[in-house]
């Protein structure tokens, strides 16, 4: 992957590239690794629970942990807004979204899974790329009102084929809104390979057509992702407008729990991707610096497992969804017809 134009700090074995000077201090990197391990542990647990019918369909982050965590680390959740797609669990958690609420959403209790009022994040989006104009409007609105804050929006390379991508980037360019478009190029949109998605050399090449910079980064390199994103965040904070970042990574698991990649994926590709596992890479880096060991690895994994267990137990205690909730939050007030339908449903 170290290719012309693709920013990298660590090589796939976790060694610093020649001349690279990491800007992140080790404690912060450790913190990043913690999130990555939590995400990975959650994905295995959730897959098991989904197979037992306790969770709905979900999309694991496996393979993309550095991409999501490294970028999210560059923001300040107190002032900055997160506008997700659906494959960025660790970012939601880093923004303060409780894992228990995520579990409630996955287990069909989204009412209890509502985003807390003090968190600056929007709900996940399944209508692909539809979140992009929302993110631009939000950033533009902050700018108009002189409010602090930068917006980050995540989306896949597949989603970037939608018209919404274009219209949003173009509007962001025109308004100079403080936004970072974070495109995760994980090589697949369900079964559609990257090469069928676009003939562009890099998706980031599109930024020029909107009048702002585009950057390409090795998405499996936590340090590189952080640095490139941080630069974009700083630009936006200085009022210099949007950046499009293409994070080149790999979806190391199924698209979602209904998918079976063996139908369309060459096992060799997956093997190669596994050799570039972002977690192993950052573990190797930290080990080299004396910050990581087998014991630490065990300890972190145990803590993550416990955190997940606790959240699962807590989720059990949440109130179950009630039929009346079907009619909540439709409008501030139900129309007479809706009110009548509600009475019918509740047998009132």
């Amino acid at each position, binding site marked *: 992957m170290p290719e012309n134009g693709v920013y990298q700090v660590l090589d796939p074995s976790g060694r610093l590239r020649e001349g690279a000077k990491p800007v992140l201090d080790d404690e912060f990197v450790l913190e990043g690794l913690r999130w990555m391990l939590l995400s990975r542990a959650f994905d295995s647990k959730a897959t098991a629970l989904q197979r037992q019918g306790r969770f709905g369909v979900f999309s694991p982050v496996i393979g993309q942990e550095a991409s999501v965590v490294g970028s999210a680390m560059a923001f300040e959740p107190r002032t900055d807004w997160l506008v997700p797609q659906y494959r960025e669990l660790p970012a939601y958690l880093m923004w303060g979204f409780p894992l228990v609420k995520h579990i409630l959403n996955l287990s069909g209790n989204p009412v209890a899974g*509502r985003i807390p009022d003090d968190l600056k994040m929007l709900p996940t989006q399944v209508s692909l790329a539809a979140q992009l*104009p929302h993110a631009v409007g939000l950033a533009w609105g*902050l700018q108009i009102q002189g409010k602090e804050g930068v917006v980050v929006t995540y989306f896949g390379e597949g989603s970037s084929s939608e018209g919404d991508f*274009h*219209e949003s980037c173009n509007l962001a360019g025109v308004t100079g809104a403080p936004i970072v478009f974070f495109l995760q190029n994980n090589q697949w949109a369900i079964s559609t390979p990257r090469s069928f998605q676009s003939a562009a050399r890099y998706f980031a090449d599109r930024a020029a057509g909107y009048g702002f910079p585009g950057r390409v980064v090795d998405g499996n390199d936590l340090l590189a992702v952080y640095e490139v994103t941080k630069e974009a965040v700083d630009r936006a904070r200085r009022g210099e407008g949007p950046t499009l970042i293409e994070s080149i990574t790999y979806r190391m698991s199924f698209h979602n729990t209904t998918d079976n990649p063996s139908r369309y994926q060459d096992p060799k590709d997956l093997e190669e991707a596994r050799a570039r596992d972002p977690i192993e890479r950052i573990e190797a880096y930290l080990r080299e610096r004396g910050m990581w060991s087998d014991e630490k690895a065990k300890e972190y994994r145990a803590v993550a497992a416990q955190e997940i267990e606790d959240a699962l137990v807590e989720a059990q205690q949440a109130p179950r969804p009630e039929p009346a909730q079907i009619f909540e*939050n439709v409008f501030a007030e139900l129309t007479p017809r*809706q009110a009548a339908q509600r009475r019918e449903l509740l047998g009132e």
Partner: protein
Amino acid sequence: MAQLTIIEAIRAAILHEMEEDERVMILGLDVGRLGGVFRTTDGLIEKFGRKRVFDTPLAEASIIGSSIGLAISGLIPVAEIQFLGFTHQAFHQLGQQLGRYRYRSRGRFPLQVTVRAPMGGGTKTPEFHPDAIEAQFVQSPAIKVVMPSNPYDAKGMLIEAIRDPDPVLFIEPERLYRKGRAEVPDEAYTVPFGKARVAREGEHITLIGWSAAVEVCEHAAAKLAEEGISAEVLDLRSLVPLDIESMVASVVKTGRCVVVHEAPLSAGFGAEVVATLQEEAFYSLDAPIARVASYDTPYPPATMENLWLPSSARVVNAARKTVNA
């Protein structure tokens, strides 16, 4: 009190709300220096500047989509789509996103957004522009759909829309934009949604319309009066919420009804009106409810549009038949 056209009434409403509340902003194609292709936003950019009166790039989905984000940021966007037919370019952002954000965020993000657009034919605009597609929005159940037919309602309902905590699609009757003036109070006032207006009282039959079709109903009623048929004209004004009570009350009184709309007949909102009335007023009906609508074809060439759109002559015919049934 001044005598205003619908255009002027709309402008007065926006102006008032922008002066009153600095969070209110407008965005859309050509809303700035040009003042909109119909001049509804004339003079506003000079007063409020480009920050609050924003000429967007030519992309409808991003006009609606960014309004969602603007609202979340704390502003109150009033978005203009140049012609209702071009909401199709933004359909996924309108019904599914704007219309469901309160629901999908479980109440965390209500959206105080107004989307304005002119609708309807009779002015020889090219294809797509005049499409009367109001029924399609009603099928997106969490967006309000309102359609004034006169200057007084236009001002009051637009102020109501801008202040409504939920998204409102405000559809304007293009053909009537400058057709006639009416008394409109200078101060701000609101016309609540979900209340139909009795445009003319009558005894023998109820004519139900909305938007520019109300004028067609009124013409028809005048002609019917000459024949001794006393027609009540009901202007629905808002399709969501729907004033079922007033519809039923009128039809219970008259026992007969014709519904008139500009959209092609099939699956037009007229079908909902008929279905609702036959559910709620079945035993009061003395004759089948008739629908007078455009034909089930694409919008025809401009020179033939008046044959295609529902005319007062067709309404009179339908009413006569209904009364004699």
